[in-house]
């Protein structure tokens, strides 16, 4: 287990370094932020001053090594736009995204497992067909379109929930509902498929022959074994949500890390982009680790 953890950490560290190098140079290729932040008629002196303050007057390689040096002291640089440490802005946004992702994934997992298992138990039945069709529709729907249609219906016409912003619990309903749809569709299909093959295995037949009732067979015997492939997909989907549900966050004016990243790219706020990417990459690394550990818990045959 320990050597496995070490290997995983090294592999992730290598990809993180690659990522940082890539993003550092790519983002700086998008142009000089000076023109964005200073008025058009700013004097040459003011421009030079701005560049010097933010370290943009140095050659690119010098900037890079300076950044890496700061990074080793856990200094992620200053945000140009907000004049605060980049990591503060990112952690604030990430907290929002984490809550959003956690609520959504908890709902998705519970619903998908419940409905998927029931659908698998009556393969080809009416409930199964209905669930399959709706999961397909859900997996095919563009989230931005669902989001704006939902706003028109539930906020503008019916006035049930606020259109955008943050505040009480009612502000969470639409973003969670929109984010729910696609992962739900995908995970439901995997649960169903995996459940179907598990339910046809010999030990389920044994349980049935013993005269057990259906519910304990599905949810106690079969579910645990059917969960392995499901967990992989749950991990992928959760990673996608952690990466920032960019579109949904920007439609609902949700101050998460995805919106922060997009804004920072458009505003050329380089240190925020990099900090955001490192924080989410680290979170995803932790989550993948958790999933690997879950594998071993669910299936004692798996040893690392």
């Amino acid at each position: 287990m320990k050597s496995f953890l070490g290997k995983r950490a090294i592999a992730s560290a290598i990809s993180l370094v690659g990522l940082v190098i890539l993003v550092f140079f790519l983002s700086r290729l998008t142009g000089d932020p000076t023109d964005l932040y200073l008025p058009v008629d700013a004097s040459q002196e003011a421009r030079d001053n701005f560049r010097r303050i933010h370290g943009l007057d140095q050659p690119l390689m010098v900037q890079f090594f300076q950044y890496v040096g700061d990074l080793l002291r856990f200094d992620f640089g200053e945000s140009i736009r907000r004049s605060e440490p980049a990591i503060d802005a990112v952690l604030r946004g990430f907290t929002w995204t984490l809550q959003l992702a956690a609520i959504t994934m908890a709902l998705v997992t519970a619903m998908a497992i419940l409905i998927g298992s029931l659908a698998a138990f009556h393969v080809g039945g009416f409930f199964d067909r209905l669930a399959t069709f709706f999961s397909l529709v859900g997996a095919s729907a563009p989230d931005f379109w669902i989001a704006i249609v939902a706003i028109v219906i539930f906020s503008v016409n019916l006035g049930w929930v606020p259109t955008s912003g943050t505040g009480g619990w009612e502000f969470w309903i639409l973003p969670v509902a929109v984010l729910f749809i696609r992962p739900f569709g995908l995970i439901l299909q995997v649960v169903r498929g995996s459940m179907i093959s598990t339910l046809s295995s010999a030990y389920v037949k044994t349980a049935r022959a013993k005269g057990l009732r259906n519910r304990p067979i599905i949810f106690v015997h079969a579910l645990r074994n059917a969960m392995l492939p499901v967990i992989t997909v749950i991990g992928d989907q959760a990673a996608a949500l952690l990466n920032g549900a960019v579109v949904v966050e920007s439609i609902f004016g949700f101050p998460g890390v995805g919106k922060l990243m997009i804004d920072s790219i458009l505003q050329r706020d380089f240190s925020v982009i990099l900090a955001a990417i490192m924080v989410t990459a680290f979170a995803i690394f932790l989550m993948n680790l958790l999933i690997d550990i879950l594998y071993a818990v669910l299936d004692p045959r798996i040893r690392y």
Partner: protein
Amino acid sequence: MAVSETPPASEAQSIPKPPPAWLSILRMLYRDKFALCAAIFLIVVVFCAVFGPMLLGEAATDQNLRGRNTPPFDFSQHWTMWLGGDALGRPLLARIIVAAQNTMMIAAGAVLASLIIGTTLGLVAGYTGKAASQVIMRLADVIMSFPSLLLAVIVLYMLEPAVGNLIIVLAITRIPIYLRTSRAEVLEVRERMFVQAAQVMGASTFRIVFRHILPVVAPTLITIATLDFAFVMLAESSLSFLGIGIQPPEITWGLMVSQGRSYLTSAWWLSFWPGLAIILTTLSLNLLSNWMRTALDPVQRWRLEISRKKK
């Protein structure tokens, strides 16, 4: 058809007079009504994509300021206006048909490019030595750990957001999917008897990989590609929706949804119809890919063939 070269098919040939592969596939398709509808819808979309701009290119850009935001379902008007008019009085239906070309072209280009590059790299990584495989897999890890939408945003912000660049960006973000799948499959297939037989007979590595292993791996990859086509379409729509994809006057469905967003409360149809076009297309692709997963898999195909005998 690549399928006919797989080993299980050779057993089937001992059965007297098997029908041609394409005919039995068509028959299977006809039996699954969902998949049939999906296939027909996709053919219509492809037809629109190929001929739409030629036939309706004029009508789609024809402004009529008196007909701004014309509501849909007014059947007294010309048929291109049946779904309503947009903010400049241009007929929505015609615009959706014309926009199919860019939407399809970007998705198809990205899927083809990532399929070819990803599969080739995956075959190499799976069949050849460790060093090359390690480098390729680490590269894939870097791409996988990166939020693909953001990579696209950065690159598109740097380059011109033209059709070609959009294809390149989307292709890069999808390569790891094919790479990992084909590598995983090759690792399993290369241990099989027929590969060893080919090696013993002195076939070159190139021949073994492309003539013996690829046909076995192909059905899985094609199924994934169908599914991925839907994903790429959604990704392109999201990019265009965020304003960093295709730029006007070029149009795609995603861009149309975003253009209609400012009229959301007064003219819902501007965003609704193009969004519906996206949903129907991706839904069809998903249905078709579901069907293909069974139809192209020699182990599972009986499920589709059995049901014919029941009826």
